[in-house]
């Protein structure tokens, strides 16, 4: 098989491995030596009921979700979110902002954003008390960890994941400081709930009274070694990320991680899948992966940002516009990462 013959020891090892598989996989006795007892879980997709809707401030409403039979919901840690399936079929993620100790109910809050993607408008206009609602989760990409000292920084509706964190920190008797920024007090939800929490220091900092916040000054409020949780506008998070290592080298900065940025500057093309014999059409604003997944749900992928390399597939025919940061030049000659890269022309044939 190879030019240099493997050593005797190695060949013995390979023979041993084959004997093992002959007994435990190929023999007539194999099925009796290991009886499958698969464990398959359910309940990541939940059918809930909108039990109550409340107006928190002028354009923020909160939704209380319960299971229709009143049973407990999966437990969560502050920072968790739900995927909410909107009546239109679109999907949005909202942080859980209720009390994690109350397993009977989830609470999410949505700010109405005119001219956004329309998700918040649908939540405000089309969802009524008593409606069924389909959610997936909870899932946590912003895990609250147990430390002695915290700084929380929330901007506007970014309060939603932070509120249960502050509540939990207060409950544990940890040292905490919270800075809450927003356009004006009238637009900042959950102020009263924050004011009711014990210990710690709450600082409300509406822009109309204090002007635009200075990230350096906000982060400076953290004790050395504190865990700093930031949620708010992307500029605030980016600034905090850049400043934190110099400002508080023994502390840690936590912000929610998002994946799959939108496709920019794409055009439509067709992908022919040589092995499956199908052709899929890729729209200008979707990735080849997203289009292929409609036909081949089990296709391998992971980061969806062109750096991990999981979705590398061989290109049989057609020129590729490589948009990844991963493949070596030699690999680019005959393969592509389907999560970000696209056809240079109007079609591609993949070995899939």
């Amino acid at each position, binding site marked *: 098989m190879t030019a240099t013959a493997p050593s005797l020891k190695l060949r013995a090892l390979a023979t041993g491995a084959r004997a093992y598989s002959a007994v435990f996989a190929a023999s007539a006795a194999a099925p009796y030596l290991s009886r499958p007892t698969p*464990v*398959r879980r359910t309940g990541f*997709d939940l059918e809930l009921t909108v039990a109550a809707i409340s107006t928190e401030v002028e354009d923020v409403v909160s939704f209380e979700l319960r299971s229709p039979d009143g049973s407990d919901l999966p437990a969560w840690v502050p920072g968790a979110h739900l995927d909410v399936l909107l009546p239109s079929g679109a999907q949005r993620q909202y942080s859980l902002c209720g009390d994690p100790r109350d397993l009977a109910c989830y609470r999410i809050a949505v700010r109405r954003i005119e001219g956004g993607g329309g998700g918040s408008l649908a939540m405000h206009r089309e969802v009524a008390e008593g409606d069924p609602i389909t959610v997936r989760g909870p899932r946590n990409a912003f895990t609250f960890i147990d430390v002695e000292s915290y700084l929380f920084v929330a901007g506007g509706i970014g309060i939603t994941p932070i509120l249960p964190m502050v509540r939990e920190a207060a409950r544990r008797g940890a040292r905490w400081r919270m800075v809450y920024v927003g356009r004006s007090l009238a637009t900042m939800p959950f102020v009263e709930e924050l004011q009711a929490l014990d210990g710690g220091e709450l600082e409300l900092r509406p822009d109309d009274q204090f002007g635009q916040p200075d990230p350096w000054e906000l982060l400076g409020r953290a004790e050395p070694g504190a865990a700093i949780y930031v949620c708010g506008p992307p500029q605030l998070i980016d600034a905090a990320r850049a400043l934190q290592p110099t400002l508080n080298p023994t502390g840690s900065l936590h912000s929610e991680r998002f994946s799959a940025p939108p496709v920019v500057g794409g055009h439509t093309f067709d992908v022919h899948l040589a092995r499956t014999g199908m052709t899929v059409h890729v729209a200008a604003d979707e990735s080849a992966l997203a289009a292929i997944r409609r036909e081949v749900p089990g296709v391998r992928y992971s980061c969806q940002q062109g750096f991990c390399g999981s979705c590398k597939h061989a290109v049989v025919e057609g020129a590729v516009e490589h948009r990844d940061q991963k493949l070596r030049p030699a690999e680019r000659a005959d393969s592509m990462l389907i999560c970000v890269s696209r056809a240079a022309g109007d079609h591609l044939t993949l070995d899939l």
Partner: protein
Amino acid sequence: MAKKPNPAYQAEALAINARDVHFDWTDVPTEYIPGHPYATHFWNVMHLVLPEGERAMADVLGRALPLIDDPRLQEELQGFIGQEETHASSHESFRIHLEENGFDIPKIMKLMEFLMDQVFGDHGLKGRAGEAWFHERLGLYAAAEHFTATVGEWLLDNEEFDRIGVDPMMLDLLRWHGAEEMEHRNVAYDVYQYVDGSYARRVRTALLASGGLLALWLYTSSWMYANDPTVTRHRWTWPLEFVKDTRKGLMPGIKFIFREIPQYLRPDFHPSQMGPIDKAVRYLAVSPAARA
């Protein structure tokens, strides 16, 4: 056999996503644990053996993707595969650095290729036997992942590395990897349980994986030590160095394996019983490579 109803998830999922990490080895010494060549080679096994092992694992587990109907396990597995791919390529980049510094890497790579192909490969089995062998390999990887998660925790807890001044870039690679191993510790196990779940197979593959990993680890590290162009001591002194460096807290030691096996073999074992992963979450928030 009475069929039990499918249990419902009782707690949230942890989002598992690959991180876009970058390492630059230009000024990193090959003896990155200064004064401890054996301990350095012990951790070098991660650069030498894991890339092929992790890719093979990502491939085998990837074959389980179309079999999984549970959207939660499916997305966890997608994230897992991406993390394993970035582990493999990051360790590989240091392997290239070692080769540029005079280590006979191609020789050890031939061994790995042989192992992956002839020992852990598909053995040309088809049909029912191929299916059973696929399940067996899922069991092996689930057990191996239990060890990588516990070694990951060991790496995060270790303070001796900071004290004796292990190269910071390397320490970050080891700890970032360890933290992600903790983060995705349930995935290979849950995939095994989903696809097969046989207890007999779990016991068998756990024993085989532990023995195999131990043998592979000691063989590779002692080979590297014996063939290290910078080591002037006698090349067969590695067992002595193994004991010395373990006592000094630079490696987990063999006791470790014997402590972990009984836990993994409990019939009701689940990786979530291994305690909170706060230290992993915290490390990933400060890791220079993951943050950049």
